[in-house]
C-alpha cells in the first residue's frame, strides 16, 4: 500500500538533483510537499505510527540516528540500515517513520527498501543460515549444500521455517573464496562446508528446545 502515490507532490519521482537550487538536500525546503501529504487521509496513518513509536525505545534511537545525519535525505540508506539493525527487518511502520523524519515521499523510501537485497521486509527467523553462492563456492558444490539444507528444513532459500526458527538465505559472494564453500551461521563464517556439516548445524538449531 505504501507504493501507491496518489497524494505525492508532482515532482516526487524526479531525481533530487533536478529540483530547485543547490540546497535541495536541506531538510526544510520540502515542507510544503509534506503538508500536502499530511493533509490527506494518510495523515491518520502517520499519526498512528508516531503514537506507536512514542512508546518504543527503538524508534527514539532511530530518531537520534536521523538527527545525527541532520535529517539529510541522502542518508536514507544509512538510516534504513540502522532501522533494520534495531528491528531486524523493515515493516510499514518503520518505513513511514523514516519517510516522515527525512521528509521524503513514502514511495521513495519503499522504493529504496525494495530495491536493495540487503533490506528485509519480513521478520527473519531466530537463526539465519546464509549459503554463499559465489563462483568459487559454486564450483566447489555450494548448490548441493543449499539443496540439502532446503530439503531438510522444508523451505526454499529466502524463506523462514514455519516455526520461525531458521531463515535460509543465499549470498552473492561473501568474499571468502579462499575457504570455499562457505556458509554463514548467525553471522559467523564457517569454512569448507559439506552438506553433512551444514545439516548438523541446522539440525541442532531446529531441535533445540523442542
Amino acid at each position, binding site marked *: 500500500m505504501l507504493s501507491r502515490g496518489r497524494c505525492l507532490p508532482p515532482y516526487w519521482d524526479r531525481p533530487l538533483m533536478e529540483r530547485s537550487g543547490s540546497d535541495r538536500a536541506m531538510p526544510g525546503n520540502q515542507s510544503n510537499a509534506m503538508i500536502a501529504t499530511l493533509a490527506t487521509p494518510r495523515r491518520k496513518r502517520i499519526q498512528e505510527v508516531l503514537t506507536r513509536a512514542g512508546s518504543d525505545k527503538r524508534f527514539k534511537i532511530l530518531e537520534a540516528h536521523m538527527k545525527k545525519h541532520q535529517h539529510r535525505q541522502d542518508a*536514507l540508506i544509512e538510516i534504513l*540500515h540502522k532501522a533494520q539493525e534495531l528491528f531486524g527487518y523493515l515493516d510499514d511502520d518503520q518505513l513511514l517513520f523514516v519517510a516522515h523524519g527525512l521528509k521524503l515521499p513514502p514511495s521513495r523510501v519503499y522504493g529504496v527498501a525494495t530495491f536493495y537485497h540487503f533490506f528485509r521486509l519480513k521478520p527473519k527467523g531466530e537463526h539465519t543460515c546464509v549459503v554463499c553462492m559465489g563462483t568459487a563456492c559454486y564450483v566447489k558444490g555450494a548448490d548441493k549444500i543449499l539443496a540439502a539444507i532446503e530439503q531438510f528444513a522444508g523451505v526454499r532459500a529466502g524463506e523462514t521455517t514455519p516455526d520461525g526458527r531458521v531463515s535460509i538465505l543465499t549470498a552473492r559472494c561473501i568474499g571468502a573464496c579462499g575457504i570455499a564453500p562457505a556458509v554463514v551461521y548467525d553471522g559467523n563464517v564457517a569454512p569448507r562446508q559439506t552438506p553433512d556439516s551444514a545439516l548438523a548445524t541446522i539440525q541442532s538449531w531446529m531441535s533445540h528446545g523442542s
Partner: protein
Amino acid sequence: MDLNQLLAIKEKELGSRKPYTLRVCTAAGCLSAGSDKVKEQLERAVADAGLRDQVEVRCVGCLRLCCQGPLVHVDPVNELYQKVNAENAAALLERVRGGKPALEQADLQHPFFTKQLSIVLANSGVVDPERIESYIAADGYRALHDAVIEMEPREVIQAITTSGLRGRGGAGFPTGLKWSTVAKSTGPRKYVVCNADEGDPGAFMDRSVLESDPHSVLEGMAIAAYAVGAEQGFIYVRAEYPLAIRRLRLAIDQARRLGILGSGIFGSPLNFNVELRIGAGAFVCGEETALMASIEGRRGTPRPRPPFPAESGLWGCPTLINNVETFANVPAIIRNGAEWFASIGTEKSKGTKVFALAGRVKNTGLIEVPMGTTLRTIVEEMGGGAPGGARIKAVQTGGPSGGCVPAELMDVEVDYESLTRLGSIMGSGGMIVMDETTDMVDVARFFMEFCKDESCGKCIPCRAGTVQMHGLLTKILEGRATARDLAILEELCDMVKHTSLCGLGQTAPNPVLSTLRFFRHEYERRLRPERVPTGAPRPATL
C-alpha cells in the same frame, strides 16, 4: 601534524619493536578459521612465559595463503606457520626459545610466494590495520605529505599519467586522464569517490586490501583530492564486508584525530574529509552512475553517459571515481616515482595486479603479480594446479562480465588487451580455476542467473534479455533445446551486448559468448535433433 611529528610517530613505533614478532593474520579468511582465538592464546602464552619484552603478537592483514589458515608469520626468522589453532598456538613460542615447533610450516620458497611482487599488498600482512602508528612506521602518509607540500596538483597528475596506472576496477581507463579531466572540470564542489562495492562473485581483493591496509586507500584518496581539488570523499563499501567497514571506520577516526584528514592537512591549504557509505547488496551499484545514485540515497540505477561523472557526478558536481586497488597504488607511485612504476609490467599495462585465486586449485588465496605474468604461471606454478591431479579445463576471469580462458590458451600474458582479445576481461581480479568436473554450460547459466537477478530493470535489453537467455540456457542444460534455440541465444547475446544501458547488461552475455567460443561442443552435445516434417502434409483440421 607536520613532518617532524610524523617522523616522531614512526621513530617511536620502530623503537618499541621487540626482537620477535608473531604476525597473526586476521583478515576474513583466517578469522573465520579462528585466528582471533589464536591471537588470544598467543598473547596469554607470551604473558605466562614472561616473554612480553621479547615477543610482540601483532594482528595483521592477509598473509595470502587463505586455504591454509589461520596463518602466523614469525619474524625475524621469516617462517610461516599454517593451520595454527587455539590448542597448538602456544607451541610457536618454542621457535622463540630456539626450538622447533611441532606445527605445519608453509614453504616460503614455493612459487606461490616467490613469484609475487607486492606494491598494493606491500603492507598487507605486515602492518596492524587497526593502528595508524603501524602504518606510519611503514612510511605511511609520507607520500601525502610530499604531495601536498612539495608538489603542485598538476605535478601529481603528471606523475600518475607518466606512471601509466590504469583503473583496476576492470575497464582499465587511464587513471591520469581521469584525474586531469576532473581537475579541469568546474563546479561548486568536487568529490572523490572510492568504489569498494566489490560485487563480482569470486573476487575478494578489495576486501583484503581494506581489511589489511585501509590507510593506504585513505592516503591515495587524499592525494587524489589534492590533485583534482576536492574536499569531500566517499567510500562506498559493501554491507557484506563488516570487518572491512569496521576497520575503515577506525582508520578514518584515527586519521582525523591525528589531523591527517580534516582541514589544513600538513599545514597546506588542503581540506579533505572522508565519509563511509554502506551499500545494501546491489551488484549494479558497482557501475559508477548507479553507485552515485546510491550515495545520494536513491535506488541504484545507472543513467546514460555522457555526461561522465568527471563532469557531472554526485549532486551534479565533478566527481572522481576510482577503485580501491587504484587508490592503493597511488602512495607507492608518489613515494617511489612514476618511472619506477612504469618499469614494471607490459607496454600498455603497467604495475602489478592483485588476483583472488580460487576455485578448483590447490593453493587458493591472494596473489599480486606484475602485469604480463602468464596465466599458466599463476594457475599451475603458483596455484599448484587442480587438487587430486585433475586436468585444468579453463580459468574464469572478470566474474559475470568476463569469460573463460581455455587451458590450451593459458600461455597468454595477463594484461588488459590480451584478455580482451580472448573474449574475457581483466575485471577486478577474481580468478576462478575450473577443472574437468566443471560443466561450462552450467557455469554460463550460473552467471546468467546472477545477471538476471542483479539487473536493475531500468533498460529492457538487460531486464528482459537476461531472463530469456537464462531460459534458453536452462533449456539447453536440460536437453530440451534444438539448434534453433542455440541460434536464438547467440542472436540475443549480440543484441543485449550492444543495446544495454550500462556495463552490467553490455557484459552479461560475455560468459555465454566465451564458453560458446571455446567449448561449443558442450552446448551442441546437449541439443536434440530438430523435428523434421515427415513428408506427409498435415491434415487441415486438428
